[in-house]
């Protein structure tokens, strides 16, 4: 206020008026790049409902993450979709070194699949909500593939629920809620969730390794809770007991006070770790300092356990069990998997994937990791559903077709449950010592895991939290059905 309050200020609002007027007038034509565009939403009074445009093609938006903890996997997300369209819908990628440049020529039964935009999330629900609104309301997307992470999945499912004309296929968002709680009829998930990916571990540890009691330590946020919940539901389901649960906050660097809360190795049969990022190693080192040396057969972890831990912790970690992710462990090689990986290397020369640290690397390395594979699965589902409908992308036709799909994908078959969430195969592995080095070897494939865990999780239960689920026995459909894997070969 000071001096400016006394000066003439009419130019300021006047400029604001003209800026608003110009932008308002100009914003209707932003989708002018598409040859078959009707000009979008410029008309007065139009309700702007997604998919309401007259043309029959698929206007596809992809939600990735270009910032935040998974920002490095932006390339992977679009690459997954592009690979599916390249393999199954005749798409030709625009660039041999990046998927972000999109594709041309993707058609199913004569219906073109056009990439109208790539959303740039940052692992927050707020940002992904803005991004999907932009893809749908501004770019005119009628089908969206994504998002990548759990909390984003909830927000996107909520948006889908409010916009029934839209069809959303989840990328690789691993929280239970989008399907179990939000229950948007137009949100489809052709992959598992954070709990599913630890299914079967409790069965093996309790019934084969003889663990009766276990202490759980997991990140104190939704993915940590969900991942731990899958293990707890499984381990308790088969009769084991979880004696302690410890939840260090995300971003903890000194885990010693949390390790103090864990029982000593002689008081418990084993430990389950769901601590991610740099926390995995830091927490294990704090454990070694407080409780003595690791003995690998007393430990199990979710997907964050990996052979690299041996670099700091030594080979004592051998024997630890590791949960699965969307793909099977890398040593499992079937003709279908090899064909899939080869197709990625054929489509691009290099990809700057998160799995290669953002540097150009072999596309098959990205394709063999869960992030890209989740988006690939969604892309395949879209193509196959369009084939079912004869190319009709309208929600009335496409959504029932998606719900009925049974995909035969490289890493195993995927179908959907009544909440449109994937029933998937989970590959469990073990860290083993080979020639003085720690490697990850598949030990079992748990077939047809669904997200309810025999009723532990349902539409009536709260989302996983520090004290949910309780430790209770349950009737898990997959107990005893585990397919052993020997030397990378599933034993039928």
């Amino acid at each position, binding site marked *: *206020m000071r001096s*400016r*309050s*006394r*000066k*003439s*200020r*009419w*130019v*300021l*609002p006047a400029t*604001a*008026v003209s*800026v*608003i*007027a110009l*932008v*308002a*007038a100009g*914003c*209707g034509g932003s989708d002018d790049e598409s040859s078959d565009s009707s000009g*979008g*939403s*410029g008309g*007065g*009074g139009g*309700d*702007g409902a997604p998919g309401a445009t007259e043309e029959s093609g698929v206007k596809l938006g992809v939600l990735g993450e*270009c*910032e935040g903890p998974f*920002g490095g996997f*932006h390339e992977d997300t679009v690459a997954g979709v592009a690979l599916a369209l390249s393999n199954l819908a005749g798409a030709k990628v625009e660039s041999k070194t990046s998927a972000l440049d999109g594709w041309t020529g993707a058609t199913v039964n004569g219906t073109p699949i056009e990439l109208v935009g790539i959303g*740039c999330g940052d*692992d*927050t*629900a*707020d940002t992904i*909500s*803005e991004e999907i*609104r*932009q893809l749908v*309301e*501004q770019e005119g997307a009628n089908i969206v593939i994504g998002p990548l992470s759990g*909390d984003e999945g*909830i*927000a996107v499912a*909520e*948006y889908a629920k409010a916009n029934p004309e839209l069809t959303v296929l989840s990328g690789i968002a691993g*929280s239970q*809620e989008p399907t179990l*709680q*939000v229950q948007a009829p137009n949100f489809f998930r052709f992959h598992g969730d954070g709990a599913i990916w630890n299914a079967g571990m409790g069965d093996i540890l309790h019934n084969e390794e003889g663990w009766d009691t276990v202490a759980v330590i997991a990140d*104190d*946020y*939704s993915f940590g809770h969900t991942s731990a919940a899958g293990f707890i539901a499984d381990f308790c389901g088969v009769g084991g007991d979880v004696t302690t649960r410890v939840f260090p*906050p*995300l971003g903890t660097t000194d885990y010693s006070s949390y390790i103090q809360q864990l029982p000593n190795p002689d008081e418990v049969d084993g430990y389950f770790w769901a601590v991610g990022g740099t926390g995995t190693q830091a927490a294990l080192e704090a454990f070694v300092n407080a409780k003595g040396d690791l003995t690998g057969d007393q430990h199990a972890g979710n997907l964050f356990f990996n052979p690299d831990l041996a670099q700091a912790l030594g080979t004592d970690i051998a024997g630890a069990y590791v949960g699965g992710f969307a793909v099977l462990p890398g040593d499992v090689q079937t003709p279908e998997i090899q064909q899939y990986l080869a197709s990625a290397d054929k489509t691009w020369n290099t990809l700057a994937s998160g799995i290669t640290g953002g540097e150009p690397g072999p596309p098959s390395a990205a394709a063999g990791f869960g992030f890209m594979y989740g988006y690939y699965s969604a892309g395949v589902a879209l193509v196959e559903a369009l084939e079912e409908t004869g190319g009709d992308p309208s929600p009335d036709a496409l959504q029932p077709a998606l719900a009925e799909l049974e995909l035969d994908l490289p890493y195993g078959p995927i179908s959907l449950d009544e909440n449109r969430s994937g029933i998937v195969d989970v590959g469990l592995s073990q860290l083993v010592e080979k020639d003085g080095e720690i490697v990850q070897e598949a030990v079992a494939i748990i077939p047809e895991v669904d997200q309810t865990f025999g009723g532990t999780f349902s539409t009536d239960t*709260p*989302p996983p*939290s520090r004290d949910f689920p309780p430790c209770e026995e349950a009737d898990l459909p997959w107990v005893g059905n585990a397919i052993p894997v020997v030397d990378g070969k599933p034993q039928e």
Partner: protein
Amino acid sequence: MISRRSLTRTNAVVAAVVVLLLVLPAFGSDFFVRFIMTQTLILGLMAATIVFLTAYGGMISLAQLLLAGVAGFMFGNAALSEGARGLNLGLSPWVAVVFALAVTTVVAFLLGALASRTTGIYFLMLTLVYGVIGYTVFAQVVTISGPSGITSIVAPEPFTEPVNLYYAALVLSVLAYIAFRAIGRTNFGLAMQGVRDDPIRMSSLGFNVALHRTLAFTLGGLVAGVAGLLNVWWRKQIDPASINIGPTLAILIIAVIGGISYFEGAWLGALVYVLLNTYTKSIPLIDQIGLTPDRFNTVIGLMVLLIMVLSPEGLAGILERLSRGRGLGKPTQHSVEPPTTSTSPVRTGPGGLQ
């Protein structure tokens, strides 16, 4: 004082902008109205509370988004009855609104009281600490939020309809704009400006400086809470990341881009911010010069830098200077001042005026 003629003209043009915004839904695209402008008005309203505290009180607050978030979280806790997280009080929506604003006001009062004896950079740092603590509280206390926040928030009728929400944001923005400007002429607002200029003098004139700062902060917090309600109605969810340091700084950046001492600047800055956020990546060939979407923050940073170099008074200051530079401005205060002001102090003293 304020040149009456220029003030009237300012008001007339502001009124014209408001009229334009009122009829905007008739000709603007849905996306522009419901996404761009609704977001602009909400962010502008939040940033206006920073302008209010800064321009009148000299208090640059980084806690405004936190207070907006408190209102949003509390509304979610109160209004939902079977949400996945939170208290699920199941109150009727308008009771929830009152509840949310009441809690926000109390929180703002307590935080304001705690900060009332600090000024300048210390006040800024303290409010930043508030923001960080607030983030942690909502991330850790699962009874009221937890890491995934409150989802499935539904606005009270009739604001479930996006256009109505736009009008709500517009009307509340206009009311806040008028009220904030009017407060400057009330005892409270004049005293705020006095506290800004010289708290010790204000104390010796009989004012309770700490209480005044506290109440100003509370008032700013209440309005931020109103913006926070609009925000959760628009976003339909809120989680700790919504009030993290990034978005917290964004509100301050909006105020700075617009011009931190102009109320108009808050909304102008918000418009620029939202437009940049939305359209930067759509500019053809933008990625050829390295500006991929993940560099958006770089673009904003460069914009802030550019604006600060051109004018510490932000875009509003630039526009004002342009208008004066081109001779478009009507007589400014300087030109209506008596020529004696430029002469020596002696001549303008009591003796000189005899």
